[in-house]
């Protein structure tokens, strides 16, 4: 699944070639989430105790790619990391989809886990993450060894993003194997900061032709928007705000679409309805008659 490669901002077909479509990935976990909104539970609650079924389920919803978060390593401290890595392979294989596979978020655990995952999935070329400024070295080496790409994660800062790309390059990571996750936030929750960081990352690549910034951008939307109260609170807890499902789906879709306009090549969502809506909106925004050329 090729991603990126554009010579313009996403959806700005009138400005330059955009050879690959925006990729919509579905986020799933390798264990039952304990903090996902009731609307997500309504869709996935019956399968999320069994991540292999969950992976098949999202493939059935028309997912183009999987974003697998290996949260079990953090939630079950006694879990054997070798098992976690083996399960990761089984889940990815069951989905039959191109995959982004990220660790549990605890640096010590991930530093041990991700090399095992890279080995299990060797040859399948996943995007492995997250490589951060203090853990990138081992993860980059493991990714390269297994023929994978890496997700370079930085906390919402243009210069930190560039710095990490430089470090990854020095560690021998080929340019075409880096995907940047510059951190996103949900609409209404300092979203403008994320919007501008995406926009400035993309401008650095396009307008300033900064080769260190020409990696595709991934926006991790679902985990942000499904945490906000507008997506979680029941109609009783939030009167006068409309139905919770519409709230949650639109919060996710509007956040995702605007980050695409700001430069994201890949968006990670949680709800299949958001994926459907986002795809419809992007199809509409891609249709041109030439009248305005």
């Amino acid at each position, binding site marked *: 699944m090729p991603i990126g490669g554009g010579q313009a901002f996403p959806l700005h077909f009138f400005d330059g070639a955009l050879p690959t479509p925006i990729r919509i990935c579905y986020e799933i976990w390798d264990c039952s989430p304990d903090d996902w909104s009731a609307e997500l539970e309504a869709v996935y609650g019956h399968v999320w105790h069994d991540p292999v079924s969950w992976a098949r389920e999202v493939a059935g919803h028309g997912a183009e790619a999987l974003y697998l978060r290996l949260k079990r390593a953090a939630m079950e401290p006694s879990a054997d990391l070798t098992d976690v890595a083996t399960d990761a392979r089984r889940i990815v294989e069951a989905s039959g989809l191109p995959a982004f596979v990220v660790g549990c978020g605890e640096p010590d655990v991930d530093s041990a886990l991700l090399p095992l995952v890279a080995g299990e999935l060797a040859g399948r070329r996943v995007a492995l993450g997250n490589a951060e400024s203090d853990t990138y070295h081992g993860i980059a080496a493991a990714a390269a060894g297994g023929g994978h790409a890496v997700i370079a994660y930085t906390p919402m800062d243009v210069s930190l993003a560039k710095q990490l790309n430089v470090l990854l390059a020095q560690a021998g990571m080929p340019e075409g194997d880096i995907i940047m996750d510059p951190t996103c936030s949900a609409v209404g929750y300092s979203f*403008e900061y994320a919007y501008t960081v995406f926009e400035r990352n993309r401008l650095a690549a396009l307008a300033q032709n900064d080769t260190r910034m020409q990696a595709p951008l991934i926006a991790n939307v679902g985990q942000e928007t499904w945490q906000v109260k507008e997506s979680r609170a029941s109609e009783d807890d939030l009167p006068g705000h409309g139905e919770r499902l519409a709230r949650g*789906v639109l919060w996710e879709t509007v956040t995702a679409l605007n980050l695409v*306009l700001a430069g994201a090549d890949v968006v990670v969502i949680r709800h299949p309805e958001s994926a459907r809506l986002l795809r419809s909106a992007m199809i509409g925004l891609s249709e041109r008659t030439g009248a305005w050329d």
Partner: protein
Amino acid sequence: MGLSGLQIFKQLPKTNCKDCGYSTCMAFALQLATGKAGLGACPHLSPSVVELLGEIASAPVRRVEIGPADARVVLGEESVLYRHEKRFEHPAALTLLLTDSLGDAEFFTRLNAFAGQRFERVGELLRPRLIALESTNLDWLLRRAADVAERSDAGMVLISEDPRVLVAAAVHLKDRRPLLCGADLKTFDQLAPAAKELDCPLVLRGANLRELEDLGLKALDAGLQQAVLEPVAASPGDLLQAHVYIRRAAVRDKVKALGLPLISFPCRFSVDPLLQTALASAFLAKYSSVVVLDTIDPAHILPLLALTQGLYSDPQKPMMVEAGIYPLCDPGPDSPVLITTNFSLTYYTVMGEIENSKIPVWLLVMDVEGQSVLTAWAAGKFVADTIAQFVKKSGIEDRVSHRRLVIPGYVAGMRADLESELIDWEVVVGVREAADIPRFLRALGRES
């Protein structure tokens, strides 16, 4: 925009007469350049110089005002393509479309729903601000405009395919200063003189760049200052292209005829209100000042209002919340005390996760000039001795019966130092990522 003090100085009398209140003409020029002084302060400028400087100093997108004097909606004065270059100036107005195909009951249901939508976010009142009435029937327009005026203070957009109806409606409603929609190349000569005379802003509608530029030029020639551009597009993709091209022409190439606010109708592209909302969000980001919808469901409106508020916020101002004690979920004397920094993104993320957990917490928010936890720690602002001072002065010791402070996982290393500074307190290392806060709080609750 962008005129330097020196360029302005060249046009001034250079007499240093001080009539403007500044000691020299150069000082005055520098204040003019930064927008801190107005041209009117100098009584010695010739009209031609005033016009020249006024022209050059004004934003590439003209200021346009809709609505009655006590509820003005101001649009335009935009000067950048990307918000970080300066800022987006006047927030876009969400607009509800009401057409004559709606029955009485439906009309009033929607109108009342419109008036009821007011959301407070970050200390600001957000709401849809304009109502668009569409009909070729003059009586309907006038009757409904009266209903709107009675039930809300919304500004109005009057839409009619019949220019005579539009002019007649404008004559009756001119005191409310509606936006008249609209004039194309065929109807321009009928509508423009009336719009100018009645002092109502006029929509200029064109099917391609050349048509719109022609209309913009005609408006300039006719002295019609108050106008809004409506690029008519067959698809959302065409509309996105039109918006981007028009704003680029205005800002980058200084094409005056296209230096006007934009109106868009995402409601024309889909009857699915969710898709309409998604498309509307794209046009909010890409330069539309008036975005017309035919949905008024709060689940659709609020994300658009919140998006607009964010996009139009000032990126030069550090994003901070006020420091202090934030009681979340109604905490009591036994509730845990967490500390974080006053960077608004950090605060909102942490606050959101605590609210999700529904576990009562005292959140201490420390002033570190709007930096995140790690940045503030690296800058020496969020370190043991400053945190200790803040905790002692915050007054939290009077609110809780325990002495247990949870610090962010990212600054785990300062735990021992902080305990030696805060002698009565036990310091607990929390989680690194906000998403893990609910889990952490539940475990903390089980522990104690």
